[in-house]
C-alpha cells in the first residue's frame, strides 16, 4: 500500500467566469482514510470532487492525487479512481449488462468482473433490461457497479446513498463503504451520517474551507452555520 498521501491540495482555486467557486482550499488525505465534505448547495462540493476526478482542471494551486500532479498527469491516475455522482453515466437504451460491458472494455477489465458485480448488488435478474425501464434505486445500484468495476483505490462519492433502500444500502456497502479499503471522499446532505463514516471532515462555505478537523473535534455550531 502506498505510503504517500492519497490526496494533497495546496491553495486550490477554481473560477466560473468572474465568480470564485473554490478559494484557497488546502488539505491532506492519507491513503485508506475517508474525507467527508460538508456544505450547502453551491458551496463547491461537487466542483471539488470533479477536480479530483480529473474532469475539471484547477485554475490555481496544486492538486496531487497519488503523488501525481493534476491536470498534467491526469492520465496516470484516471484508471485508479472511481466517481459516483448525480448522473449514473449509463446509456438509457442499453441494458445494465451492456453498459457495464462498455465501461469494462474502456477500462481494460474482463466480463467476469461485470457478472461478479451484478451478482453482488442483486441485479442478475434484471441486467438485460434497458436502463430506462429500471427504477431510480436499481439504476443507482448499477452506477455503483460502474464505479468500482476497475477496483479503484480512490472513491469519489457524491451522495452515494441517494435513492437506495436499506436492503440495497447493505448490498453496496462492501463495495463503496469503509470495508472496501479504498481512500474515499464523500459528500452528503446529512452531516450526521457523513461524520459517522469519516476520518477527516472538511466544511466548505462559499468555496472556502470553514474548518478541517477529525470528526470528534467538529464544532456543532460551525456545522449549523454551514447550512444556515
Amino acid at each position, binding site marked *: 500500500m502506498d505510503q504517500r498521501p492519497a490526496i494533497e491540495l495546496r491553495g486550490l482555486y477554481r473560477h466560473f467566469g*468572474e*465568480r470564485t467557486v473554490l478559494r484557497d482550499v488546502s488539505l491532506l488525505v492519507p491513503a485508506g482514510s475517508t474525507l467527508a465534505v460538508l456544505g450547502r448547495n453551491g458551496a463547491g462540493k461537487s466542483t471539488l470532487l470533479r477536480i479530483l476526478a480529473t474532469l475539471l482542471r484547477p485554475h490555481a494551486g496544486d492538486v496531487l492525487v497519488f503523488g501525481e500532479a493534476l491536470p498534467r498527469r491526469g492520465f496516470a491516475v484516471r484508471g485508479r479512481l472511481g466517481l459516483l455522482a448525480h448522473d449514473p453515466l449509463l446509456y438509457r437504451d442499453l441494458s445494465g449488462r451492456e453498459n457495464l460491458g462498455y465501461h469494462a472494455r474502456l477500462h481494460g477489465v474482463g466480463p467476469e468482473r461485470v457478472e461478479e458485480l451484478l451478482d453482488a448488488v442483486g441485479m442478475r435478474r434484471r441486467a438485460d433490461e434497458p436502463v430506462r425501464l429500471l427504477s431510480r434505486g436499481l439504476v443507482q445500484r448499477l452506477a455503483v457497479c460502474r464505479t468500482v468495476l476497475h477496483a479503484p483505490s480512490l472513491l469519489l462519492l457524491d451522495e452515494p446513498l441517494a435513492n437506495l433502500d436499506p436492503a440495497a444500502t447493505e448490498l453496496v456497502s462492501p463495495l463503496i463503504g469503509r470495508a472496501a479499503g479504498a481512500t474515499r471522499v464523500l459528500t452528503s446532505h446529512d452531516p450526521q451520517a457523513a461524520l459517522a463514516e469519516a476520518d477527516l471532515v472538511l466544511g466548505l462555505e462559499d468555496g472556502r474551507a470553514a474548518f478541517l478537523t477529525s470528526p470528534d473535534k467538529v464544532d456543532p455550531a460551525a456545522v449549523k452555520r454551514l447550512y444556515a
Partner: protein
Amino acid sequence: MTTYGRGLRGLSLAAAATITAALALTFFYAPLDANQGFIQKIFYIHVPLAITALCGFVFGGVLGAMYLRTGDRKWDIRSYVAIHMALIFGIGTLLTGTIWAKASWGHWWVWSDPTLTSFLIVMLLFATYQPLRFSIEDPERQSRYASVFAVVAGAFVPLNFIAVRAAQAYVHPRVLTLTGGNLPGSMRLTFLVALVGVALLYVTLWKYEMAAKSTRMQVRALRRALLGEDSVAPLKRSAAPS
C-alpha cells in the same frame, strides 16, 4: 497586463496620415481608368479592405492557437477583437464590392469571379463566430471553443480560395484584371499606400478596442478587490470574453 494604450496616439496619427495620403493619391494622382472611368477608384479602398479582412481572420486564428497553447485569457480577447474587426472590414469589402460591380458590370453580384465567391463563403463562416460564442455560457468553455473555431476557420481561408479558384478558373477569364503585377506604376503606388493605410487603421482600431476592454476588466477587478464581491454587478450573458 499589457498596456495597449502605449504608442496608440502615434499609431492613430500614422494611420490617419496614411489614409489621407491614400485619398489624395486616389483622387489627384492615380490615372482615370480607360474602361471604367471614375468608379474604378473604389478599387483602392475595396481591395485593401479585402486583404486586411482576410489577414485579420488568419491573425485571429493564430491568436486563438496561442490561447489553446497557453490558456491565458488575454489571447482569447485578442483573437475575439481581431476576428470581429476583420468581420467589419469584410462587410466593408462586400459593400464596396457590390457598388463597384453594379457600376462597372451592371450587376450587383457576379458568380463568375472566384475571389468574390470565396470571400462570401469566408464571411458566411465567420458570421457564425459571434452566435457560437453567445450560445456558450460557461466563459472558459466559450473561450476554448471560440479558439478552436478560430483555428479551424483560419486554416479554412486559404484552402477555400484554392478550391473555389479551381472551380472557376477554366470557365471564365479573371474579371478583376487590375491585380498583382499588372498595375502601372502610378496605380501601384496609390494601391500600396491605400493598403498600408487600411492595415494601419485595422491595427489602430484593434489596439483601441483591446485598450477599452482591458481597462474595463482591470476596473472591475480593482472594484472587486477593494469593495468586495457584491460591488460589481455580474456581467450579462454575452459573446465577448470578459
